[in-house]
């Protein structure tokens, strides 16, 4: 039997909590910005005091897509690794703290320049729009800080392997290492564009910027970024949920296999965000479309595993009919229900993703608000609800408090409010996106256009849904504050599932990291080297910076 700590080490708990607190502060500010946006876009409200729509939109994107996610994920993974691979060494923990502070300083710097209106370039910061150099330096610090934490996790895993020769690493730790490897490899792209292109260009050291190269480096990072968000949600589904419902992990090997496949097929796929761009051959676009859709395979494996776990549990409790096992699931336990709603949202979310990435159909929805509707299902429902569901046991586990019945009920109300609000908002976005309403745009009647007039009712629906989501944010923040400082003291379990007793031993080859990394690098070179060389060799004159437009 592999020995694991039942409780996260107290010092490690502090490190994890620090990350989680920053994440929830980002949720509050970013969520408030989202609320303001839906109000403005309805056409009924104007922002006071010279606050810009695009300034608010930049803050919303940066704080939620980059800060909330990265901080929560790193905090969750430190806790998970401490729980399954033992307490961090003093060195690893110190490294984690250094990473935390660098990320936090970076976040503060970037947020500062957004709030003073010097960086309304949105979270994708497409050149040649030019923000204050502090915005880019802050982002670079966030990325570098996350790398440092990643190295602490790698070292911790390696130490466990050394202490347990001949054994495969604990599942949750293994998954965290896959996710950080994915993150390190993909964020090299955004680091390269920020450090080699944006910062020298903003400081005036270089005259022009190669726009297409900067966008390509961004999207080399931008799509794996979404898998970096999704994989921790999958960790909760694969490892935690089986224990919460009282069942078993369907297959430890299959879970690892799906994570390795995500590592392979997350990165060489950025062109599906650039399908309607000039300067990239349609053949290379198609090749990356094929690589993109390979993630269907691990997604199907995950769906199968989840429902197999659910069904086996229900049948072990005596269910006999085709769907009778559904009755036995703990529907009134927020730790199960909230992530479960996230899983359900991934069905339309994933289907929408297939549409977006499918070469020709992309032209119908590209840069329409359909896309915004899509990722509010995937990230803002599937991932975020899973994170909320995890925070409900993780935060009290770390603070030595308990998730009380009342808080559990409130968490269920929160999830219902979120689901209804998101159905309205995301539904309206999808629908009106098909009519052509653009994303990332303030309210406009487009010169009295009849088409744009038809979009207004949907924009009002977005405001209704978005307001409910903000209420949802207030509720979850109330619960988190309770769990951090006020809930009754006690022991809250960090649930870690076990594989079925009949399952065969997980093969050791899953820990062949150099093989996996080599395959990833080969796939990236295959997908990118020729079109990327073309972008540099056939580049038009570079673009000067435009910093007065934004």
């Amino acid at each position, binding site marked *: 039997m592999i020995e694991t700590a039942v409780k996260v080490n107290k010092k490690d708990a502090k490190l994890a909590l620090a990350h989680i607190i920053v994440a929830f502060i980002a949720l509050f500010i970013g969520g408030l910005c989202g609320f303001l946006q839906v109000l403005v876009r309805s056409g009924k409200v104007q922002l006071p005091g010279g606050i810009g729509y695009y300034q608010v939109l930049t803050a919303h994107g940066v704080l939620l897509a980059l800060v909330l996610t990265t901080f929560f994920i790193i905090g969750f993974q430190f806790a998970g690794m401490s729980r399954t691979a033992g307490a961090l060494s003093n060195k690893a923990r110190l490294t984690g703290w250094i990473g935390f502070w660098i990320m936090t300083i970076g976040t503060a710097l970037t947020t500062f320049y957004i709030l003073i209106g010097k960086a309304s370039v949105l979270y994708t910061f497409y050149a040649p729009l030019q923000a204050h150099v502090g915005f880019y330096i802050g982002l670079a610090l966030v990325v570098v800080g996350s790398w440092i934490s990643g190295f602490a996790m790698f070292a911790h895993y390696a130490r466990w392997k050394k202490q347990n020769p001949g054994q495969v690493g604990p599942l949750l730790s293994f998954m965290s290492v896959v996710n950080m490897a994915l993150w390190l490899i993909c964020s090299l792209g955004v680091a390269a564009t920020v450090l080699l292109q944006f910062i020298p260009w903003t400081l005036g050291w270089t005259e022009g910027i190669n726009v297409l190269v900067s966008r390509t480096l961004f999207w080399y990072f931008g799509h794996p970024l979404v898998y970096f968000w999704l994989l921790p949600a999958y960790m909760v589904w694969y490892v935690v949920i089986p224990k919460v419902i009282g069942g078993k992990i369907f297959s430890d090997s299959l879970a690892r296999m799906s994570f390795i496949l995500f590592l392979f097929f997350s990165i060489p796929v950025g062109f599906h965000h650039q399908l309607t761009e000039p300067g990239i051959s349609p053949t290379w676009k198609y090749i990356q479309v094929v690589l993109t859709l390979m993630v269907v395979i691990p997604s*199907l494996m995950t769906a199968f595993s989840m429902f197999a776990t659910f069904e086996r549990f229900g049948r072990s409790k005596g269910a006999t009919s085709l769907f009778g096992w559904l009755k036995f699931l703990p529907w009134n336990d927020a730790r199960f229900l909230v992530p479960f709603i996230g899983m359900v949202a991934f069905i339309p979310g994933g289907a929408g993703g297939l549409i977006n990435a499918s070469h020709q159909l992309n032209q119908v929805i590209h840069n329409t608000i359909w896309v915004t509707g899509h990722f509010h299902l995937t990230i803002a429902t599937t991932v975020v609800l899973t994170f909320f569901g995890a925070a409900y046991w993780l935060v009290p586990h770390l603070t030595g408090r308990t998730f009380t019945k009342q808080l559990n009920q409130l968490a269920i109300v929160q999830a219902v409010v979120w689901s209804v609000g998101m159905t309205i908002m995301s539904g309206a976005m999808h629908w009106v996106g098909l009519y052509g309403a653009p994303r990332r745009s303030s309210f406009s009647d487009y010169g009295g256009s*009849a088409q744009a007039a038809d979009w207004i009712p949907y924009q009002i629906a977005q405001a209704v849904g978005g307001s409910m989501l903000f209420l949802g944010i207030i509720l979850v923040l109330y619960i988190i504050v309770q769990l951090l400082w006020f809930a009754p003291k006690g022991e809250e379990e960090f649930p870690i599932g076990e594989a079925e007793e009949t399952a065969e031993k997980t093969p050791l080859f899953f820990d062949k990291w150099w093989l996996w990394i080599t395959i990833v690098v080969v796939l990236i070179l295959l997908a990118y080297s020729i079109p990327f060389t073309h972008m540099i060799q056939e580049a038009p004159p*570079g673009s000067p910076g435009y910093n007065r437009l934004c």
Partner: protein
Amino acid sequence: MHLHKYEKIWLAFGIGSLILFLVIVGINAFVTGHQPPSSDKTVDPQVVGEIAPFNKPGLKKIGKNEYQLVVLTSAFSFDVGTQDKVVEIPKGAKVHIIATTKDVVHGFEIAGTNANMMLEPGHISETTQTFREEGEFTLLCNEYCGSGHHLMHAKIKVVDQS
């Protein structure tokens, strides 16, 4: 590694559908020529306004019921060759759209049609659209380009001339 029998069936069905899907998309792309806009021409964005065809934006007849529409964008305007930013296109006309930007990245979208592409400084973007339905269509910028992004638009009027 052992796979459960049901999982094998599930994955075979899923992977089979995926391959079928990719083959259909591939045939659409490479056999029937339905590719996303991917023009490979470049131009100096600083002086593009002096270079043909962008020195004369607007609609030009190039064949029977076939036209070229040249559009030059800058923050925050579409230059379509007319003062009122309205382009009249005969119903049923096949229009080859050629567009680029003088400054930042813009989006080119004719709402209600499949004409939708990115415009990037230094690169020329091209797409072809046949206007089969009468009516007014909004040409708008769908990529954030600065504080006036949502004010950037023009109008395509498809008129029945028969």
